[in-house]
């Protein structure tokens, strides 16, 4: 069983990112569970989402306290909150950032990987300059880094699940997938 936690902000599509991943994984006949933090998030405020993956049915309906990996959709959160909370020793932290893994304090204690999802999103004109929509790019990177699914599955998941600009999103995901 693999458990992952996502950090983002209300309105950035953090939940969507986890949902797309879940779709992709399910396409490969694995069992998956994805859920947002159970809260009243407001636009801009920090939010969290989780996903649980296994190759047999998942009966545990309790929440995830010690994830295997952490994904940070919004880098400004790294200062704002403790994104490593409960993270299993040796777990991977994937951050949307143009900086290098070494630049992060918790590098070493954990495997840190960065991907400039924002740049990719902007390049593919996803969302606005002020508020680029990075969820598909993030999904691409995470899929690859954690080896969760094939690129095809992810692409298919995006085509099912993302109504607008599906192809641009697929390309963003693909670029992120291949870059990392």
């Amino acid at each position, binding site marked *: 069983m693999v458990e992952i936690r996502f950090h983002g902000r*209300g*309105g950035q599509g953090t939940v969507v990112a986890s949902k797309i991943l879940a779709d992709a994984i399910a396409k490969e006949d694995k069992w998956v569970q994805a859920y947002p933090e159970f809260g*009243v998030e*407001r*636009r*801009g*405020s920090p939010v969290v989402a989780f996903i649980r993956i296994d190759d047999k049915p998942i009966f545990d309906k309790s929440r995830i306290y010690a994830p295997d990996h952490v994904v940070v959709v919004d880098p400004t959160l790294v200062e704002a909150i403790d994104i490593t909370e409960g993270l299993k020793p040796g777990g991977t932290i994937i951050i949307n950032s143009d900086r290098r893994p070494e630049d992060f304090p918790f590098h070493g204690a954990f495997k840190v990987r960065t991907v400039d999802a924002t740049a990719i999103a902007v390049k593919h004109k996803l969302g606005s300059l002020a508020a680029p929509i990075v969820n598909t790019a993030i999904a691409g990177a995470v899929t690859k880094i954690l080896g969760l699914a094939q690129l095809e599955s992810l692409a298919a998941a995006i085509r099912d699940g993302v109504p607008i600009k599906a192809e641009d999103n697929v390309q963003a995901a693909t670029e992120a997938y291949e870059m990392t």
Partner: protein
Amino acid sequence: MSQDAKNEKKFTMTLPADELMACGHLACQGCGATLAMRTMLKALGKKTALCIPACCWAVIDGPYPYSSLDVPIYHCAFETAASTATGVKAGLEMTGDTETTVVAWAGDGGTFDIGIQALSGAAERNDDIIYVCYDNEAYMNTGIQRSSATPYGAWTTTTPVKHFKTRPKKDIVAIMAAHRIPYIATASVSHPEDFFKKMKKAKDIKGTRFFHVYAPCPTGWKSRPEDTIKLARMAVQNGYFPLLEIENGEKTTLNLKLKDRKPVDDYMRLQGRFRHLKPDQIAAVQAEVDARWERLLKGCAA
């Protein structure tokens, strides 16, 4: 002007400096409802008690065991803003506190829909409360579903683009006017001084007083947070949300006569919730606004 002269110059405050609403609250960026609360409390002061039903403000104030306001709040059931306020007022009076102003503070859903019966009852009894409806034109706290305050044409999650709302906005001011209560006023977050003045006036009137306050919601309107004040101002200036007062359901006063009203078009274009509308549909909205405006002028004349 010289830097020293400037250093000398006082910072202009068109409203009292005291803040009974503090920062740290949970409103979204650019929330109009929050600004409305801030302004009202400046007018009513510390001797105020609020009854807040389910609505964004039930969240904005902050979770247990915290609060953002310096006045007591009773968080009441969704449909009970008016009836709870009536009870609080009676309870305070029977225990010796006759000065405190009791305010029911509710959203448009809690007022136009599920709370209208309690409100109508209080108005009929002329209970001694101020009822404030901050109108963001949908159920925002639950994630943008239509209310009867949602205007014609608007997208919400329960009026999807293919089935956008085709009924006009319920005219709550006309409905309350028909109750012939002592005082009714509309206000907009874009005109805080006007809101402040009216609230001060209402404070000294006895009986049921009703405020309809226009409070844009960037999250629900799919507008830019920074446009909140601009949108509210446009709505006032194009007659979409006229500023007025009605006394005893009779004497209607338009607070700013607009000689040349701007078209609603550009106001609507700034909001994602109207993006799908075709020109003729926007024209329909314009027509409705014009008609209502005419009725108002008539009403004032009468």
